[in-house]
């Protein structure tokens, strides 16, 4: 653990090594800069006889093992969150997205007609179904495949997955309104 030396900015810099004043200056400059600070930029703020690299080395040593570390990036130096803490501090923000219309319709058809083949979905919607749409649905874990239909070509059968029930707040599939009820209104 580093010891606090109670920085005295008006300390005369007789020593050629990194004085507390120089460390403070480097620290604040790198902290406040938008871009990584190159050694020569720091050197421009230090007295001529002070080696900027030595100051940076001193600063690096001071921050070693701390929550924030000095790292060399893009031709300069920047403070960065220590990697082990970055993982702990990263907050995951969930931004749900809407499914495209085709995917929603396909999902609905799978829900009410399961198990159903791709050709049947196409027949019901009266439009071809792209592989991309099926992949989108698979990614959401709302649908899954359930073997093949025993007909020539052995087409894959599609059914809803467990996540489907929780997504739509259903206890089981029987809670879905019956097809006839839906279509009479339409």
């Amino acid at each position, binding site marked *: 653990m580093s010891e606090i030396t109670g920085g005295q900015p008006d300390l005369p810099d007789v020593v050629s090594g990194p004085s507390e004043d120089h460390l403070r200056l480097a620290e604040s400059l790198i902290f406040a800069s938008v871009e990584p600070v190159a050694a020569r930029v720091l050197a421009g703020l230090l007295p001529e006889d002070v080696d900027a690299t030595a100051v940076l080395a001193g600063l690096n040593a001071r921050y070693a093992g701390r929550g924030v570390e000095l790292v060399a990036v893009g031709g300069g130096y920047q403070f960065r969150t220590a990697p082990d803490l970055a993982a702990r501090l990263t907050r995951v*923000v969930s931004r749900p997205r809407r499914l495209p219309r085709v995917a929603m319709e396909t*999902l609905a058809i799978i829900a009410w007609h399961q198990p159903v083949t791709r050709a049947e979905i196409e027949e019901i919607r009266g439009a071809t179904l792209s592989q991309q749409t099926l992949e989108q649905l698979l990614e959401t874990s709302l649908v899954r495949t359930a073997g093949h239909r025993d007909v020539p070509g052995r087409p894959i059968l599609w059914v809803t997955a467990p996540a489907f029930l929780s997504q739509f707040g259903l206890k089981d599939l029987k809670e879905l309104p019956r097809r006839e009820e839906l279509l009479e209104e339409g």
Partner: protein
Amino acid sequence: MSKSEPGPVAAGGDGDKLLLTLDGFSGPLDLLLDLARAQKLDLAQISILQLVDQFLAVIDGARRVRLEIAADWLVMAAWLTWLKSRLLLPKDEPAAVEGEAAADILAARLKELGAMRAGAAWLAARPMLGQDVFGRGAPENLISTDRSKITADLPMLLRAYVDGIRRGTVKPRYEPRQLSFWTVQDALKRLSASMRGSAGWSDLEQFLPANLSGRERNAAIASTLIASLEMARGGGLVLRQDSAFSPIMVALGELEIEVVEGETAPIVAPSDLQDNSEPDAGELA
């Protein structure tokens, strides 16, 4: 209304000090406060009468050098003149009491402005972020976005189902694409019109419409060949080809050419032909 900075701008520029002084104030109250401050540091002890005299002197001075004075300054001058007349009355006159009350109001306003000016100074003296102290120049974004969740509820699902079914049952009306190639009919018209009255053999390709290339030209060749065969079958034309892949030659036959009625169909511009992709069937409904 006057501007917030009623700085009278000198036209002559004779460097009058008064002009510059007036210019530096953001309003008559601002000048009054300055005059009061010059009089006494403690605003509670200033002489309003003296202040009024000083203010009116400044305005008079400005008038003498024919400065344009903003309306709110003149309003203040008029009010202060009225105030002065009341303050000069003997204390026992009722109008003098009125004057005292008005003077108190003026003093209170000056005090308030003085406080606010001190407040501004107090703020300005603090180490200001971005001026005297600096925050992290490159803050880190420790937020990662999870887009795996889906926004969809049961009503949306029901709707999607009904929409999907309806899409399947309402058959999209079949609309043939506009034929854009040179048809046999077109070729018949052109060939019959061109050949009538001609003598000798001509290359069949002479009867193609101009400016065609690629598939359109190939289609036109095929149509024209079929048209010529059709006409040859009726005896209107004779055809010959000297060897495989050599030009097909046509000449008038023994019988009359049947006149094909009608206008030649226009050739569709090639740009209209380029989009041959099928439209998304789902979008037709």
